[in-house]
Structures are given as C-alpha cells and as structure tokens.
C-alpha cells in the first residue's frame, strides 16, 4: 500500500512537490478494541504496529525515494544499505512507536534525508515530543515531516518543536495554512526553534 502526496508545505511557507513515496503497513484486520464501552482511538505507546510476517510481506518499491514504516526499516535495513547510501530511504514513525529505536538502528541518523512522524489524529500529541527528541537528543538535521492528520491550527507548535515539512491533510490549502506560522510574535519557553527562554533574551 502506498500513497503519493503531491504537495509539501515547508517551514518557510513555501510549497513544494513531493517526490517521496509514503509506504504504509496494511491496515490491521483486528476488530476495533473497546475500553469502558468507547472505541479505543489511539494505541498505547510501545505497542507493535504489525506482526513480523505482515512486515516481511510488504513490497518495497525498487526505485525512487521511499519513506518506510519503522518496523519495516528495523526488520530489513540490511537489504536496503545501498539505497540508504543513495539517499533514497527515509523512515516514518507512528505516534505509538518510540523514536529511540531509529537512532539506535543506524550509525548516522543523518544518512536519512527524511524522517516522518505520524499523527493518526491531530489531538494525539506524542509526535511533538518525538520531534523534540530527534532534533535535540539525536541531532537529526534532515527533513522532519509531519504526516497524517496535519492541520493548519497546529502549525505554529509543530514548527517550534522541530518539524520543517508538513504533509497537510488532503483538501487543505497549504498556502493559506502557512499564515499560521505567524500566529504569535514571541514565545516564552525554549524548544527546538528557540534554545533560549524569553527571560534570557529580553
């Protein structure tokens, strides 16, 4: 299963054509879980995305730039070494997966031109922390891309924690959305974009 996106909004407000294929694992066929009578919206941190046989069965496109799901990358990275060297491999991490697994899996995280972080719904805020960790703890300098339910009114925060590319949910106007980068003239606290708190700058 793959999905091709046509537009990516960048942190400077420009919009570019996407030349990456976002490869996804097959949708789970398990029945929807329920807790206290309500459907479970989000998976608990640390759950596995898919059983090993499902991951093994996914076909990776043999040419072009591909954004791979983390479990697939972890299981099959050895066979992809040449394509990593060619700059054709990126990895995306789901909201319930721990981002630490990625830097632990290769010598140089910056060999990946793109890392994606997925928002199953925009209210699942785990990827904000994942982005912060990848940028600040693991020194990732490449493109950090927000995937999934990525909307206009979260862009200011997303950029602050370290995202610099946004695959907005289909149907949204990326040029109009870019206005939200300017929502606030100043910020109090540190994050990836601003290593000094206001009280050390003002």
């Amino acid at each position, binding site marked *: 299963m793959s999905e091709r996106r046509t537009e990516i909004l960048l942190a400077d407000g420009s919009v570019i054509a996407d030349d990456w294929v976002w490869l996804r694992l097959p949708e789970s066929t398990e029945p929807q879980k329920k*807790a206290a009578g309500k459907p479970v919206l989000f998976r*608990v941190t640390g759950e596995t995305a898919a059983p090993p046989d499902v991951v093994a069965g996914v076909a990776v496109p043999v040419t072009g730039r591909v954004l791979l799901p983390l479990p697939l990358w972890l299981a099959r990275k050895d066979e992809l070494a040449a394509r990593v060297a060619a700059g054709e491999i990126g990895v995306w991490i789901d909201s319930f997966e721990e981002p630490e697994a990625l830097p632990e899996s290769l010598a140089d995280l910056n060999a990946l031109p793109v890392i994606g972080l997925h928002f199953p719904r925009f209210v699942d805020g785990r990827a904000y922390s994942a982005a912060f960790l990848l940028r600040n703890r693991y020194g990732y300098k490449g493109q950090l891309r927000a995937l999934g339910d990525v909307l206009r009114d979260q862009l200011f925060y997303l950029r602050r924690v370290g995202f610099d590319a946004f695959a907005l949910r289909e149907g949204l106007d990326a040029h109009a959305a870019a206005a939200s980068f300017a929502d606030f003239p100043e910020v109090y606290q*540190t994050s990836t974009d601003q290593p000094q708190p206001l009280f050390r700058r003002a």
Partner: protein
Amino acid sequence: MYRYNDYDRAIVKARAAQFRDQTRRFFAGELSEDEFRPLRLQNGLYIQRHAPMFRIAIPYGLLSSQQLRTLAHIARTYDRDYGHFSTRQNIQFNWIPLEQVPDVLDLLADVEMHGIQTSGNCIRNITSDPYAGIAPDEIVDPRPWCEILRQWSTFHPEFAYLPRKFKIAINGAEHDRAVVRCHDIGLEIYRNAGGELVLRVFAGGGMGRTPIIGSVIRDGLPWQHMLTYCEAILRVYNRYGRRDNSYKARIKILVKALGAEEFARQVDAEWAYLKDGPSTLTQAELERVAAHFTAPAYAADAGGEAELTARAADDRAFSRWLARNVREHRQPGYRAVVLSLKPTGKPPGDADSATMYAVADLADRYSFGELRVTHEQNLVLADVRAGDLHALWGELRKLGLATPNIGLLTDIVCCPGGDFCSLANAKSIPIAQAIQERFDDLDYLYDLGEIELNISGCMNSCGHHHVGHIGVLGVDKSGAEWYQISIGGAQGNDAALGDVIGPSFAADQVPDVVTHLIETYVAHRTPEERFLDVVRRLGIEPFKTRVYANVASAKRAKEVEHV
C-alpha cells in the same frame, strides 16, 4: 500583582486575534466541529446546555479592581448579568454566544486577561494559596513561582495535546491551602536546613473518577530547576500517559501503574538531559518577577486594634463575622477579609454584575485595589486595616457578602452541576440550597464548628467532593439523579479522600442524610473535636448506621417498590 510587559501584551493580543480568525473559519465551514473543539477548549469554551460555557483565567486567583470591573461589564453586557467563581480560582460565564466571544477576548486582553488553557488537554491555570504574601505561616511567597510557571506553560508547543488535562498547584506556607496533594503536579516551596529555597514535588494526585493522593517524587530540588524538572515530568507523561482510554489518561494512572519510584526514575533519566540547560531559572528572572509581588504601602502605624476590640465586645454579630470571615495578617494592624459568596438561597460562588462593581470599589477603598479568589469560591480583600473592619462590615452587609459562615457547614463548595453543565449526572446547586436552608440557624452552625461540605454533579469532581469532610456526588442511575455521600475527606497537609458511606440517595433525602451525619457527630464529640476529627477517631460505621437506620437509600427504595 503581576503586570504585563510588552511581550506579554503582544502574546495575549495575538491569541485573541488567532481565535477570532479560528471562529470565523469555523462559522465559514472551513473548520469542522472536531477540529474546532480543542481550539475553543484551549480558549476556555465548552459547549454547554445553554450556550458555550466560557472560563476566564484568574492566574493563581489574583484580580485587580479594574479586572473585576471588566468582568462585571462582560456579565452585564454579554451574559445574563452574573458570573460563577470556580474551585480553580477562575470565573465562568454561561450565556455568551460563541459569535461574541472574540469581542469579549479583546476586552479581556485590554485588562491583561484571557481564557488561555482554561480547558482542554493542556497545562491549565496554575493555582495557589489565596493568602499568598500575607499569611502569617508563609515561608515563601508562591506568586512569583506561579507566574514563572504560567509563562512557561503558556503555549508550550510540546504540551498542548497531552493525553488529558494537567493541573499544577503551588504552596509556600506551612499549611497547604492549595491542595497540592490533589494535583497532577503539586509544588511546595520551603527553605532547607541551609536556608536555601527548595521544592518538594508531588506528582500523580488528582480527583475525578479515580481519586489519588499525589506521591512525592522529588524533595529538596533547588529552585533553579523548577522548569526543567517540570519539563521532564511533562515529557514522560506526554509520551507514556495512556491515550487508549480517556478515563485512564491522567498522569495519576501512569504514576500508579509504574509506581512512584519508577516514575521518578524515568523523570530523572529525562531530566538528566535538561538539568542546568537554558531553562534553568536565574536569580535575575526570579527578582524581575518577584518585584511585581512586593507588599503594598502599608501604614506603619495602622492601629485600630483597640477600637476593634471595643466594637467586637459590644456587637455580637460583628464579633461573629470577625471570628469567621476575618483572618490574621502578617502585617500588624491589617487583616484579610473573606467575602462570603455563600448566603442561603444563592448558588455558591455566583456574583452578579452589581456585586462585582461594588466589590471592585471596596477593593479600591479598603484593600489597595486588589482581591483574590479562593478555591472555596469566595472572594478575599487581603489588606484591610483593622480600624476599617467595622465600616467594611457595614458595606458588606448591605451587599449580602457578610454571611459569617466561612469554614462552616453552609460555606458549601459546589460545581454548577446539571443546571448548566452538560457533563453533569445530576444537579448540585439545588442540593446546596436545600442544605443551606436546613442549617440556616447561625447559633447551631457555630456550635457545629468547622465542617467542609463539597458537592460535585459528576465524577469530574469540580466540587472537590473527595476532599470534603462531607462529600456529595451526583450519580446517574438509569436516567435518574442520585447522590452518593462520603465522609472523612480533607484538604491540607493531611489531605485525605473521603469514604463512601453506602448506597446513594434521592435529592430530597440529602438534607436528612446530612442532618443524621451531624447528629451522629454531636452525639460522639468531645468539646474540642471537629466533625472530621470524630470521623477519623470512630471511622464511618456509627455515621453509616445512623443514616441508613433513618433514611431509605435508593437501593432500599427500589427494593420496597419491587415487593
């Protein structure tokens, strides 16, 4: 109190403009209800039974008279002439149409107020001791610390979409008046043996569906590390708090599941990366913020004590008010005065616009133009001269704000309940009123002494029923409203959660239940024991036995029906 600088002002104005545009896009159909919901929540707007409920932040309960006048103006112009002071030291309006909220936000921004992060799954308004800066038992004034945390948490980009809401409270006195043990993070500031300011950090406390008293996860933390340590807690929670089930999403469930020790270890592991980093607080920043909270220009020879003693001696009503509604002050010749928003017959915590305007004037005339909101839903004039008390009492009596019931049974803490709130299982205000009517005899109330009674209309516990000496909780049973009663809860240094006495009751039985609880207390007490002390000494059994021998619970009523 803290006054905005140009940065603060620009940020709050930008927020008002941002929400105006979001509201416009919502009405234009560009934002769906699901997309708009967290945006409006983080500006204080719930959709309620009548209109959106609009919650305005009163940071750590501090208000200027000018701000109160703006709130009065909003009540009069945009609402039905009243507002409700909440248990989180905020104010709520119930009738402002969504279309008008952006205009109200502009008015609020002009007086350095807003609805930022007063609901939603983010870091909420920081709460604290309403007697900060004046309490005789204060070790450290908590207000600068509250303000520093307020700024840090405002629009924190990483923590705006947490698993669930997140509440922080700070106490700086010997007696905890901020309920720090029932917050997601509770901070106590004190001086260690070496005289240095340090923090005791509680985490994982909370009320709601699963009430838990917080655990100390760190003690003796030097003050410079307050923000980095909180950041570490929030990051662990944001990543590992449960998002599969909203009933288990609060940090208390995570702390309980891991155990406080393991949770503390994970926080420490995260903190190791942040410690001594740029967010470490500086002496200069502490001084900058603390400079906003200096003592007002107290008269060195305020005097008035002799006159006060004389007046109290020959006026029983006045002396009663002094005993219940006036508190000791650090500054000789001054007192703090509690304005009771709990007269019989009015919803606890409500104030109409005329009252708000009048209180603002009294604050200007008697208390340096400032006032405080307590989490027991009363107002405080914090700096009143002893010699002014009699005159102020006269003014407050005219306004209906001098009911001498602070800390007594009728000083009921109560959420808006089913009359207003769409989350509620049951009404709470009529229950409060029925209890107030039952116990309207002041002599009897005095004789009963301190009793805290708290009512919540649902498990969300806005009325803090878990920590009431008597707690009343509205529950829904097949569409009918019932009330579960607990006793033995307490706030403060020995905070405790109440024990449920048994099956629940119908609304009209609740005053009878309270009567039997009180009579059990009276029968067993020694002269110096409060209600809570007797519950602690005897346990719930004698109370339970007497109540169920005399009042038919819902379960019994049902059984009788089916015979």
